[in-house]
């Protein structure tokens, strides 16, 4: 039977079992015929949990993470971002400054031509309040920096991790366990989790192969992120062909703050020069477009996942 290995994005999260439950329920929600109840369909699932590597304790407010209330969902993602990082603290200050500048100062989503946004130009655009965007992207900067530069980090007294080593170890362990469960084996990643999934599948020799990769709201299109995925990544041959036997499907919302800078991946992760990543624009609704639950509600995403799992 099929298996899905999931990996979450930045920010403090509820504990592992609760987070896995939230993701499963998010996928199983909605009208009959669109919902995907993985367990009921015989598909096992697991979560590569890494929030505790960077954050001191799980978020006890589990309900907020599956809230349908816009503000509550946004707060659950930006309220607990931990310490931010300054340029001086960065392993590569120039790199961090460049990335920060692009993330915080550019907002390509707002420059998007009206006719390119959403279905038939009908989608509403709500500018994300600057302070919220700043908080979220500051957290993103820290987490992505600590991972890509394998920073030594003490999330709570008495526990210190080499961030990249630890998260890679967990990813490989979960993917190996998932491979034992059955085929097809699909990795579903969100946000910063897409960077981790790509890094492991492309650059960690011990990582087992999977059948398909799904990335949601991914920052992998950003040049500064790609720069730190070398050696391994090249624009002409960046597809993790050795570890992803089947497809890589990338779903994005043009107004998602993380994916917005460069949402399309096919041109940056080619296989032998060919564009093979399936980029799909699926607009989420409301103010906070990066939310996992909204991606999981997407009909295009669900159709793709069903197909990849052969349901």
């Amino acid at each position, binding site marked *: 039977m099929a298996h899905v290995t999931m990996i979450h994005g930045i920010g403090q999260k509820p504990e592992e079992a609760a987070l896995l439950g939230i993701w499963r329920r998010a996928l199983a*929600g909605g*009208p*009959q015929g669109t919902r995907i109840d993985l367990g009921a*369909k015989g598909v096992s699932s697991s979560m590569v949990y890494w929030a505790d590597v960077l954050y001191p304790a799980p978020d006890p407010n589990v309900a907020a993470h*599956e809230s349908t209330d816009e503000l509550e969902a946004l707060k659950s993602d930006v309220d607990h971002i931990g310490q931010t990082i300054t340029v001086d603290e960065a392993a590569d200050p120039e790199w961090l400054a460049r990335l920060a500048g692009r993330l915080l100062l550019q907002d390509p989503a707002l420059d998007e031509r009206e006719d390119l946004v959403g279905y038939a130009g009908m989608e509403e655009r709500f500018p994300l309040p600057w302070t919220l965007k700043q908080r979220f992207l500051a957290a993103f900067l820290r987490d992505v920096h600590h991972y890509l530069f394998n920073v030594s980090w003490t999330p709570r007294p008495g526990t210190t991790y080499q961030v990249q080593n630890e998260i890679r170890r967990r990813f490989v362990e979960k993917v190996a366990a998932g491979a034992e469960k059955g085929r097809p084996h699909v990795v579903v990643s969100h946000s910063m989790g897409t960077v981790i999934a790509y890094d492991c599948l492309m650059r960690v020799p011990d990582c087992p192969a999977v059948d398909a990769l799904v990335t949601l709201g991914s920052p992998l299109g950003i040049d500064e992120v790609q720069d730190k995925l070398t050696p391994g990544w090249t624009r002409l041959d960046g597809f993790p062909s050795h570890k992803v036997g089947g497809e890589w499907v990338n779903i994005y919302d043009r107004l998602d703050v993380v994916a917005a800078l460069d949402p399309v991946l096919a041109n940056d992760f080619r296989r032998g020069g060919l564009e093979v990543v399936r980029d799909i624009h699926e607009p989420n609704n409301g103010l906070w477009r990066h939310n996992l639950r909204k991606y999981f509600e997407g009909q295009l995403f669900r159709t793709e996942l069903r197909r990849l799992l052969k349901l």
Partner: protein
Amino acid sequence: MNCSAEATKVLMAATSLEENQVESACSAWIECLRDGNEVPEPEIARKVLDGLRKHRHMGPLKRLADNLLRLGSRGDVVYRHYSQAMIESGELIAAVAILQGLVRRATPGASEWNEAQGLLGRAYKQIYIDACGSKLGMAEDALEAAIVAYRQVFDRDPTQIWHGVNLVALLARAERDGVRIAGFPRKDDLIEGLSREIEQHWLAGTLEAWDYASAAELSLAGGDLDGVQRWLKEYLSAADVDAFKIAGTLRQFTEVWRLRADEGEAGAVIAVLRAALLRNRSGTLSLTPQQVQRTAEADMVCFEKILGNTGVQTYWWMRTAMNRARSVALIRQPDGRGVGTGFLVRGRDLYEPFGDELFLLTNAHVVSDTAEQRGVLRSDKASVAFEATADVDRTARRHRLREIVWNSPPELLDASLLRFVEPPIGLEPCPVSELLPVTEEDQRVYVIGHPLGGELSFSLQDNQLLDHEGPTSGKPTIAGRVLLHYRAPTEPGSSGSPVFSADWDVIGLHHAGADFMPKLNGKQGTYAANEGISIRSIREAIARSLIGEGTESAER
């Protein structure tokens, strides 16, 4: 001889869903007490009886209380538990007799007296409701007797919310039914006083699940729908809410307040409670055909208001459940007695050449034409009724069967696929799935049937999936037959019922249940379980037996 270890075993068994284990533990304790010539300590007896009541083992509770009394236990608490178990099993007259004695013996105002009066009120209330308006015998005075019992307590102690709310509910019911109850305070004054009491507890943070349900009932009495929804939201998310409590609230809202699920936003609270009950561990829902239809038509807004984030999802889930129930049929023999359950399937879902024709799938031990299966209903004698479809099924309510197109004996797949003389029109067949749920996670399966084949009611049961012989780790004992084991909260359901995944796809055909079912996949021991045959096994067996003659069969 000290039997406290045996008493502990009863408490441990009580936490399981296995009634046979509870019965065995109770018997062992009684035997120990008898052998040791020992009367149990009143405190130990109370703890054990409380444990059985808390986990809803009413059969063992009744038998244990009976035995303890025979052994010389004279505590009122034993009589009280005995009477509660009797009420639960419908033995209302015996319960009233015991409770009246208890009320006489106990000190007015003491907690045991309060409890006994409350149970007395509950027994009389049930007698009134069961009478359905009849004035024969006890029925006429039962409503007043129930009101008096609750009032006895509430007049002495107005902080007793449970008694007070029941008093309000029954006074409202009396008003609606035109039953004159003289000399009682105004309902509105009672509501006001009780609301203040609840408010104080709310501020102090001392409300428990039952109190939230009482508060919702008070809001209903005062016509405050927002209040009903707000309190039910608290109730259903309370840590100590369980299937028993939800069932009690549902009973109160439907039987006393007479709410109907299709009556706008107010009635929709019934559908929400039903959904909550069915989704709760060990939840069992018994619905009349009319209730199935009304629940399917419930208002979605109410789900969102009460269940919050999961409201819309639960609404669709429940609606699908009701739609599936419509495709579940009662199979009757010529004298009209129900003998089993069957369900509608699309032919091609089991065998491609059958196309879109609709068939009925049931157990071979329910309907069979083979000579070896004597005593089983023959297809030409059977009639099939889809009870919840009066407004949808435009054909006759009773469908006749033309033939059995495929059959596997009870010792193999225990299945008969039946062709209608005239298939029902306007009914959706149950979708089938070959995919079995994963066993490592806490997966639920749902059985919809007509229990014991005799009642015109649907039983929807939440079952825990225990094990199955399917992929990836299953080891079928008979080649081509994949079994599923699941645990029902009550006695085994009806033969021929569909077993649904949590996604409401049919994954199996229910065929048996036992208290000592051998475990699957080479595991040692037995457990109380129900057993179903996977739909995939049936599908593959049909293909094997009909291949080559499939088109002929399909064209007949």
